[in-house]
């Protein structure tokens, strides 16, 4: 139900504006519509959750997929040197995963 509501929300809102808002500032207070989308896609269960593994403190983060309690995480290929770029990459993957929306840079 929530997913359908969110799809309606995305249709009715100006999606490029929401995406631009996230791209400009992925953390902190968002507009109500963006926060609702973000809360939904960030509620992925631990198994399958996209996350970042810090590989060099404050310099490098690698995209990972969690596999649940006690299980090694899956290391993905994407490596980032800016945490906001990493947030953006996860956002794009999740918009595809949860809403089948393709976003480009």
């Amino acid at each position, binding site marked *: 139900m929530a997913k359908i509501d969110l799809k309606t929300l995305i249709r009715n809102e100006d999606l490029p504006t929401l995406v631009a808002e996230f791209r400009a500032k992925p953390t902190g207070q968002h507009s109500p519509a963006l926060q609702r989308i973000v809360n939904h896609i960030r509620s992925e269960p631990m198994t399958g959750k996209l996350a*970042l593994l810090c590989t060099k403190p404050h310099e490098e983060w690698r995209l990972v997929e969690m596999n649940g309690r006690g299980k090694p995480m899956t290391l993905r290929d994407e490596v980032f040197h800016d945490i906001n770029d990493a947030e953006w990459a996860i956002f794009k993957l999740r918009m595809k995963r949860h809403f089948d929306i393709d976003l480009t840079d």
Partner: protein
Amino acid sequence: MLKITGYADRVSVTPGQTVSFMINCEYARYSASIVRVVQGDTAPEAPPVKLVHVPSAIDGTYEGRPQIIHAGSFGRVDLDKRLTTASISLQAMIMPTTTGKGRQAILSRWDEGSGRGVAMVIAEDGSLGIEISAGGELHRISTGRQMLDRHWYFAAVTYDADTGDASVHQIPQHDFPTIADAGSVSARLAAGLDWSSDAPLLFAATYGGTDAGRMVARALFNGKIDRPRVSSCALPLADLRALAGDVWPKHLTGTLFGAWDFSRDIPGVTFEDLSGCARHGLVVNMPTRGVTGHNFTGEDGHCWMDKPEQWSAIHFHDDDVYDAGWEIDLALAVPETMKSGIYALRIEAEGEEQFITFVVRPARGQATAKLAFLFPLATYMAYANEHFGTNDGLVELHLNRALILHPHQQFLNEHREYGHSLYDLHSDGSGVAYSSRLRPMLNLRPKVEANHGAAPSHLWLFNADTHITSWLEHCGEDYDVITDEDLHYEGYDLVSGYRTVITATHPEYYSREMYDAVQTYTHSGGRLMYLGGNGFYWRIAFNKTQPGIIEVRRAEGGSRAWEPATGEYYHSFTGEYGGLWRRQGGRSPNHLVGIGFTAQGFDESSYYRRASGADDPRAAFVFEGIDDEIIGDFGLTGGGAAGMELDRHDVSIGSPPHSIVVASSEKHTEAHVFVVEDMLFNHMGTTGDVCEKVRADMVFFETPRGGAVFSVGSIAFSGSLPWNGFDNNVSRLTHNVLKRFLDPAPFVEPAA
């Protein structure tokens, strides 16, 4: 993945004492040295990391060797090998919690090495069974009916050596329609099986031999065991049932081999045999005691001291760990001249670096400075090896940002034998009530980041607290370091020699002894600077006989990671009621420091606005030389001085009526949410963007005999101290307070 880990036998050490280090190093060689920890934040926005090498006999390179942890709690009764019986009955009331896990031993005398012994087990299919072997063929039968998790069963198995008859009885305490979980099966196995072995009698495990002086347990059981009994004959079901109580028919006492009562010595590690055979036992790795048994009614009191016979159970977990028991690799005899401070053993091999943090405190009763930094060891232990980043999928809604994991968290997710924090769940889903420091604590070290604590530094607890020590050194203030474990054992005497005590960013976990010592201090002329948020929140207990372990029971309510079962609200270590200090009768954090926990959120921090109380002449020293209306709109923890966890001034909860609010924060994000303990009915408008109670209040008040308290009510606060080379209004304001608090001129409580 980490290849170096380690721990010390003590975290607080006095000059003249020796601290020993136990090291697991998978590299062939490593170098080691002692450093004094001043600043451990590696963020480019922070001042440079400052770890000062302290020349010592430790300096050098050493051979590495792996050391491992054998987690999992169990009970042991050591028996002479010759003390055996051919026929046997094993029985207990059990509450399994992971019937789907595979083979788990409930009661055993089973040697995994020789494959010889007898055991009452949960079989691979989750049903009760018996295993018996003379070392060759393994004989086993089970009911084939999977038990329900978290339900009680009468469980018994027998073997008659004369006939070879074996039986298994699995009888649920409650029957449910559609659930077929009762079963009694029997079979004729080989007669005269000689299953005797060197194995001790174990509860919740089988015997896997020894490793470096430690007993190794296998087939670890998750769940509760209540009233275990062993008889030296194969008893019929009626007799087994008769033994399940606490009074036994006379005709069964002659064959009773042991009947254990887990309600004896609940605070300790022994358990007593009431059969008359004196086969008393010990628990290993601290399973949870003071838990309800199969006969808990809820009608006869809720504390195990009321009717111990209703708490005659132990909850065993396959991931409990108390003392890792590693062998010593290095030791430092702390010279009498070593200045009190925070130190670490630095270990390095092939580019990997690890630290074992410890404190050199002054000798008892010999303060060497006017100021003491109170190292919150109890809280560090509560969070030791936390798994926030891998526990719950909703973690990102706490953070309101992507989940960033760090190498130690990757390691801990896979190495569950390193044990858990008080924020985690055991593998069976029950809350972790005990945490020990006698194991590597991989987040108690400089240069480590965390999930909590926001950008740019992403620090939490210890490493965030180095913002305070680096600030003190920048200001040229001399200070001792003492731990709150010392405070627990020594009470007010530990702090009586200091003019001012300064806390860390998050001194959350307090025993009664710790709370009383701080209160006696502030009521005896002492000055307390509480430079954090959500302090003095959970009540904890230390164990009276086992060093280095604390307990929490998250009773009733509060912002908490798990909920104890009804009847398990009282600490097993002391019998004290657990939970929030605000529910402990006139001892809320507000009573102690003028403010108490009101909200938390972990995305971005905000700022304080000067309040009218700043103009009160009593508090004028706080803002001396500061004309700014806005305080701390910058910082290393979320970009502001007010954030993460916040405390509110509230006279109705205990803030002293004469306390003055000199500044309050505002404009918090939606991620900062009002705490549940302040809500009766849930209601709208509880987030930082709309709720005025989501704020940090900065408070000052005078205390008896010339003392005073200054509290900032925000975990992020200290992240602003180092900003701009320590030149900022948070730093100036805090130093104003420190200078006045170190001034011997007494504070005077305002007249009525």
